[in-house]
């Protein structure tokens, strides 16, 4: 069904009535109306994953917290995005993400330009309560142009979805289960030996941390471009070229 010209679904977010399109999610309508909901795995231009759970919100008459990125709007839906409980949930989720990998901002290529780091600042994560897992993970620098450091991977699957849905190569996927999950290229070979990789670099552009980076970048030099995917899909599907600086 084609989108109406104007949003026509009334939704109340944090006491403010906003108008949504019928195909909006809570996150997309909130974003369009300048209401900040912390999120990590969500990425404009690719499908919803809902894995990080950082965007959980409280929806009236629902008995559990809902991920804003995967919750479709409904007429007169009442949503609360900021409460002490929500803040605490988000904070603990982020702490678990930090404890699960080896995130050392001081020596990371994305230091100063990292969505995970920004979220930690935003949510006030000044220490981590769960025990650090200190997993032993090996850097994959086999690709001539890029580097994959699984120590910094948060398994948001932005790269998986982008490579599959936008580039169409589906180099990346997730292997293993639960906290033993890990990112693989093709059938688990070194990235530089993955024949399906087109070297396009979209996965690197959308990575929220320093896990995927341009080879040769020193500490703090990596700059990602997460709006690239929405720019490309909008241009391809809508014939509309968005301004990537202001998206």
């Amino acid at each position: 069904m084609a989108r109406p010209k104007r949003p026509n679904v009334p939704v109340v977010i944090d006491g403010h009535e906003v108008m949504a399109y019928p195909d909006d999610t809570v996150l997309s309508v909130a974003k369009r109306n300048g209401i900040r909901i912390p999120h990590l795995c969500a990425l404009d231009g690719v499908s919803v994953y809902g894995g990080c759970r950082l965007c959980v919100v409280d929806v009236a008459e629902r008995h559990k917290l809902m991920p804003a990125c995967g919750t479709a709007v409904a007429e007169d839906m009442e949503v609360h995005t900021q409460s002490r409980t929500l803040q605490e949930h988000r904070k603990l989720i982020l702490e678990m993400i930090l404890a699960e990998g080896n995130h050392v901002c001081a020596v990371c290529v994305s230091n100063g330009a990292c969505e995970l780091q920004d979220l930690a600042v935003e949510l006030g994560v000044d220490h981590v309560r769960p025990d650090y897992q200190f997993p032993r993970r090996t850097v994959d620098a086999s690709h001539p142009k890029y580097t994959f450091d699984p120590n910094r991977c948060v398994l948001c699957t932005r790269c998986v979805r982008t490579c599959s849905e936008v580039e169409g190569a589906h180099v990346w996927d997730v292997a293993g289960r639960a906290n033993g999950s890990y990112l693989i290229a093709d059938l688990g070979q070194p990235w530089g030996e993955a024949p399906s990789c087109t070297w396009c670099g979209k996965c690197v552009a959308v990575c929220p941390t320093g896990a995927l980076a341009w080879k040769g970048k020193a500490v703090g030099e990596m700059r990602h471009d997460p709006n690239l995917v929405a720019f490309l899909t909008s241009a391809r599907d809508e014939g509309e070229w968005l301004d990537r600086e202001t998206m």
Partner: protein
Amino acid sequence: MHNTHVIDPVTRIEGHAKITLQLEDDGTVSDARFHVTEFRGFEELCGGRPFQEMPALTARTCGICPVSHLLASAKAGDAIMSVAIPPAAVLQRRLANLGQIIQSHALSFFHLSAPDLLLGMDADPSERNVFGLMASEPEVVRRGIRLRQFGQEVIEKVSGRKIHGQEIVPGGVAEPLTDDEVIEIGYKTGEAKQTTLDVLAHFESLLVTRFGGEVKNFGNFPSLFLGHVGPGGRWEHYDGALRVVDSQGAIIADDVEAARYKELLAEAGNTDSYLKSPYWRAAVGANGSPWDGIYRVGPLARLNVATHFGTMLADAALQRYRGRTGEIATSSFHYHYARLLEVLASIERIEQMLGDPELTSEFVRAEAGVNRRRGVGASEAPRGTLFHDYEVDGDGLITGVNMVIATGHNNLAMNKTIREIADAYIDGPDVPEGTLNRLEAGIRAYDPCLSCSTHALGQMPFQVQVVRPDGELLTELRRD
């Protein structure tokens, strides 16, 4: 029966250490040892990381001299990439190292050693500290802090931050220097230079009136001296080649590339300290002791290996210095004196560099991948010659690291110094506080940075002794 005195911790140094003294019943010194009691292990934890991350990673070794590690590490990266970095990047790196020498020497002199030097070795310990100094010599402290601030600001302009900057990278530097930044530095050189000249004059007068005994007894022994020199034997801090001289001034080795350091130096482990003891390999025979290969690095050594500074005021001061010390200074107490001269020379060098239009060139970085599996980088850190030696795989991931730290080079000399001080000042089983402070001051003269210096994992010699209460050794286990 042995009488043991332990100074734990040694204060006003960078890092954690203790000194133990073993005295015989009659009060004569049977042994004096300097133990570094902290372990860092950077050689191990860097394994598997991309070499491009190494400058910022190894800079975390230290909050005092991160620039030294940035430089040695970036130079090792340059070597792995096999590139000659742009001239502007060389100038920027040199500028950062001069700022580093100024701020670190200012810290050593004003914050750590000035309480001993200006208040006296035997001053009341409750006042013999930087707060006591602030009470009695507030203007000296204020100017010392300003001098250190100047050095830190120079570093900030180049590396992005005063501490743990990340803009000195393999291939050059990350950003060009702007005209405004150059002008800002230029505004502040005058005050820094005047402070240094005034303190130098004051210190020179104290050498005559107060510290004759310390000059004689603080590590005043023959040894080799190692450091970089530039063309014509000029004082050098970033590039150049290694030179070694002996206590008579004879050149033992010259024009040695830093990458050959392993041919010349060897490292001995210690059972009672995390700090290894490097020694000059050629001076030690097949069954010889590392003590035969004792050498010193740092300001004292750099002035001993160099012929001149190449700047007017520093060369004039160097003439006065050599008038007091002779052509080769053998007393480690003169590290303080040499430090002040290096600060003066560094400020003058900065003044010279600021007029070079190349300093603000936009071309600051060479790009390349792995073109060599091993890279050695060296620089003259404030405390002496620093080597970073990396091996990488074909993808540029670190497979081996050896960091030879300035403080490590001086380990044997520091041990010898405290033994010398103990012999000179201890007379009987009761050791006065002023003598204990002299032992600490003997270590402070080297301005050791212990947090930088203990990295090798799995190579530590190991010793277990079972000792009777009367000191008799019953059994001993060793793993060397």
